[in-house]
């Protein structure tokens, strides 16, 4: 938990306006989580300081028990090659997820846990939203160790001031 440390660094005079990218991830489905990490990790390789703020369903990514089994839903997803109504049939989410995971494997795309590992190696900062933790009844001990700290909206807004910010 180094919220305080981050703040101290920031207020230091030597803060050369480093390029920062901040991403708010509010969804936990694969088609939302992948773009978040692809952008975060790439931005880090380009020398940006990167912060990802996990809120609402995005918090599932930080959940030890759920990170390995994130899904993709065919409902409310017009890009899916099936009518929405069929997506509501039991088993359809599992099927869509299986199809996507097959594709992920075939294209040698890293898994989400691998993307998180990469993010960590590249110095991407992963922040958990305190309110969402309460809301989803997620405890600190239930989260993956890669989480840097638990913060609130004000801290995130401070971090993202003047940064490129994306809401997913």
């Amino acid at each position, binding site marked *: 938990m180094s919220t305080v440390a981050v703040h101290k660094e920031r207020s230091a005079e030597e803060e050369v306006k480093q390029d920062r990218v901040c991403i708010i991830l509010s969804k936990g489905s694969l088609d939302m989580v992948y773009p978040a990490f692809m952008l975060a990790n790439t931005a880090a390789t380009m*020398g940006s300081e990167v912060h990802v703020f996990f809120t609402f369903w995005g918090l599932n990514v930080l959940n030890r028990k759920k990170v390995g089994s994130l899904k993709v839903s065919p409902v409310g997803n017009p890009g899916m090659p099936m009518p929405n109504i069929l997506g509501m049939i039991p088993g359809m989410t599992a099927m869509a997820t299986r199809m996507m995971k097959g594709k992920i494997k075939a*294209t040698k*795309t890293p898994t989400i846990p691998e993307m998180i590992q990469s993010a960590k190696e590249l110095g991407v900062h992963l922040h958990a939203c305190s309110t969402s933790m309460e809301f989803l009844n997620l405890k600190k001990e239930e989260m993956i160790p890669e989480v840097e700290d638990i913060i609130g909206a004000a801290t995130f807004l401070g971090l993202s001031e003047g940064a490129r910010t994306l809401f997913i």
Partner: protein
Amino acid sequence: MSTAGSRKVVDSRGSFCPGPITDLFKAYRASNVGDEIELWATDPAARADVQAWADKSGNQVMEAAQDGDHLKIVVRIAKKGR
């Protein structure tokens, strides 16, 4: 002027964005100024992505050409960041 460095081949064939850039970056971290990294990629976005990365990080794309089944991109390390 330039001191001759070493050249390392990074094979990213078959991997898609952000695979090639991530592989390139890993090699970059282990490189020295003056070194060259030869990236092999089949991702159609690699050419433009590597150029964008090089512009941002202050390095140079020396060569980018199709070489058989893949794109061969040579990057000269001119600057080391973190």
